[in-house]
């Protein structure tokens, strides 16, 4: 498995995980009623990746909306990344937020305070 990809829907994000390149992207909306079910395959893929991680791992998060149910699952994803970071792959999480979306910036800062991985806050135009 070199690539892991999921097409986005109105309630779930587009996920692409290029294992060869060590690049994970999550984009769009994450507002499913059952987010555990949705994120489990990604958490499993990260588990597998952790035993053969690349020297650097880049993570791009560009969410328009996410619900509180997803916020726990996103934290689980970040915890896996923290373990991968500790395991020797230099992980960077790029947290994108739209120019005037203070709530999204604050959400990124909340994760930054919890997770021991370098975070970059990236402002994007609307």
């Amino acid at each position, binding site marked *: 498995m070199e690539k892991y990809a999921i097409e986005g829907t*109105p309630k779930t994000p587009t996920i692409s995980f290029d294992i060869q390149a060590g690049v994970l992207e999550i984009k769009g909306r994450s507002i499913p009623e059952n987010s555990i079910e949705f994120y489990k395959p990604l958490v499993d893929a990260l588990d597998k990746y952790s035993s053969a991680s690349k020297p650097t791992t880049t993570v791009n998060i560009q969410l328009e*909306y996410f*619900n509180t*149910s997803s*916020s*726990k699952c996103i*934290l689980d994803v970040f915890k896996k990344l923290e373990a991968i970071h500790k395991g020797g792959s230099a992980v960077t999480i790029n947290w994108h937020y739209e120019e*005037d979306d203070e709530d999204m910036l604050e959400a990124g800062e*909340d994760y930054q305070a919890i997770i021991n991985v370098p975070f970059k806050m990236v402002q994007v135009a609307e």
Partner: protein
Amino acid sequence: MIDAFNIYDNMDRNNILLSFKGDITSELLTSILQIMENKMDNMQEEPKTKKKVYNVLVECLQNLYHHMDDATDGNGDKNRSAIFMIAKNNGSYNIITGNYILNENIHGLKTRLDEVNALSKDQLKDYYKSVLNNGEMSLKGGGGLGMIDIARKTGEKLDYNFLEIDNKVSFFTLIIKVTQPQLI
């Protein structure tokens, strides 16, 4: 004979943009969110306002979706349904939800709502982070973050009421106000 005019007039006077009564399904939530998104586009709302309202709507609706089951063992069928309304008054949005709740569950919910209402903006941020990091995820999903998130994003107190129907169930109403963010 159903007095449609009475319902129409009531909704008109209360500036109701959308109202629904019935079973809350996943598909219904998808539709409601889409309708509200289109409405706010048509009303040319500021992106900031749109985002806030949308976020709070998602949490309110999913709260209903996950918790309206709580009273099904009360009186059977009638309790499978909930009411949801969204109104716009003087530039601020009001999101109103109503559902049956077993009387024995009132105390726990009221305690949680009062806890959230007692916290300042900074305390809500800390509380959110601690529940996010330490709280157990419930099978229903939210793990108690929904109300904290709503209070944090709106900066308003959660306005609620419990109306006792009989010795088994009450009707729980939650009113969330989303004011237009200040344009700087």
